[in-house]
């Protein structure tokens, strides 16, 4: 096994071996447990409420007002989280402020998601990186993988620039600024990695993956909190 491609081929072939059918006892046991297990109900409002018919939105808003008024009048908190699912959104007072039509958060989410999708597409378009850090990679192959790595680095730089231009709602302006800083760090890491690759310092370039992963992972809590797409 002298190069990554050979190794990957061998590993793929090895992975094909082994069981491919689930034992009946495992499936039957799971189904038996499911028979006595209740589902968790989803009481959140769909973020993409903007696609709803205006009259449904209006009805939803009326229900929301009634729900909030009831809660205030009777000093009751919503407690039910079980029961049959509803075919129309059931607003919850705690989630409602984020879901109103024309909410800046909705617009921010859509714009950021588009920026991140574009960057993710670059990973998809330039996914062939086998041998990138292997000093033995032949020159013709080297040209391909370096070009792919450059495509990704360029996309990350574009993502950081575009996110920097994005207007965030006041409530998450600070978190957005931090996220942009992480994106810029990531872009700098990938740019530095390209320089290392061009200098044929492959081990140093590979080591940058750790820094890149750390920078990427720092963005996750922000994305989770605001239900945003995962940026690269």
């Amino acid at each position, binding site marked *: 096994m002298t190069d990554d491609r050979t*190794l990957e081929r061998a590993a793929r072939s090895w992975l094909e071996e082994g069981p491919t*059918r689930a034992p009946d006892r*495992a499936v039957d046991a799971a*189904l038996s447990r*499911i028979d006595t297990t209740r589902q968790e*109900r989803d009481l959140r409002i769909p973020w993409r409420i903007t696609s709803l018919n205006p009259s449904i939105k209006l009805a939803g808003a009326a229900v929301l007002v009634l729900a909030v008024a009831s809660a205030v009048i009777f000093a009751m908190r919503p407690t039910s989280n079980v029961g049959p699912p509803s075919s129309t959104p059931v607003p919850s007072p705690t989630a409602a402020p984020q879901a109103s039509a024309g909410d800046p958060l909705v617009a921010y989410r859509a714009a950021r998601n588009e920026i991140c999708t574009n960057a993710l597409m670059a990973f*998809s378009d330039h996914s062939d990186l086998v041998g990138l850090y292997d000093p033995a990679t032949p020159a013709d192959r080297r040209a391909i993988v370096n070009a792919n790595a450059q495509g990704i680095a360029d996309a990350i730089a574009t993502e950081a620039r575009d996110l920097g231009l994005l207007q965030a709602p006041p409530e998450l302006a600070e978190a957005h600024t931090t996220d942009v800083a992480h994106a810029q760090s990531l872009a700098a890491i990938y740019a530095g990695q390209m320089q290392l690759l061009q200098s044929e310092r492959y081990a140093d370039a590979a080591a940058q993956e750790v820094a890149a992963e750390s920078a990427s992972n720092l963005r*996750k809590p922000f994305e989770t909190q605001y239900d945003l797409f995962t940026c690269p």
Partner: protein
Amino acid sequence: VDRDLVEQARQGDREAFAVLVHQVSDQLYAVAYRILRDTGLAEDALQNALVLAWRRLPKLRDPERFDAWIHRIVVHACYDESQRSRAMTTTIRVLPLDVPSREDDTAAVVDRDELERAFRRLSLEQRAVFVLHHYVGLPLVEVAETLGIPAGTARSRLHYAIAGLRDALTRAAEPATREGRLA
């Protein structure tokens, strides 16, 4: 996977979910086994993943995403199972050591045993990326999406998985150090 079945199961239809289970369980078990390298643990991970999927199905917003969603659940069930059993490191120690010698068997057989050992040395996160990419055949972006991690992280984990395999195989090929390491 049939979108209507997913929708029916979301609404609480157990029969629809049972049909889904029969459609996906072979693939999920195969993935779990390849990550955990243990049939007993893979069975437990599959069971737990299916029950968890049933419980959480109403929260799945887009039925089209069912396949990626349930793969993510089974991978996390593998993480949980491994942690719970604490069997992974033990398994490394109790692996049979009577590896056929290079002189009297084919290199391919040796490679497979060595691959098994090398793979067990990877972290579960690296194994999951490697299995989803090289066994399930998902592009890296879809691996990232399935696992809920950034694409850069998926790429990094795949890189380190391959580097880890290479490193372990290289060391395994050094007879002088081999016995001492496995003893």
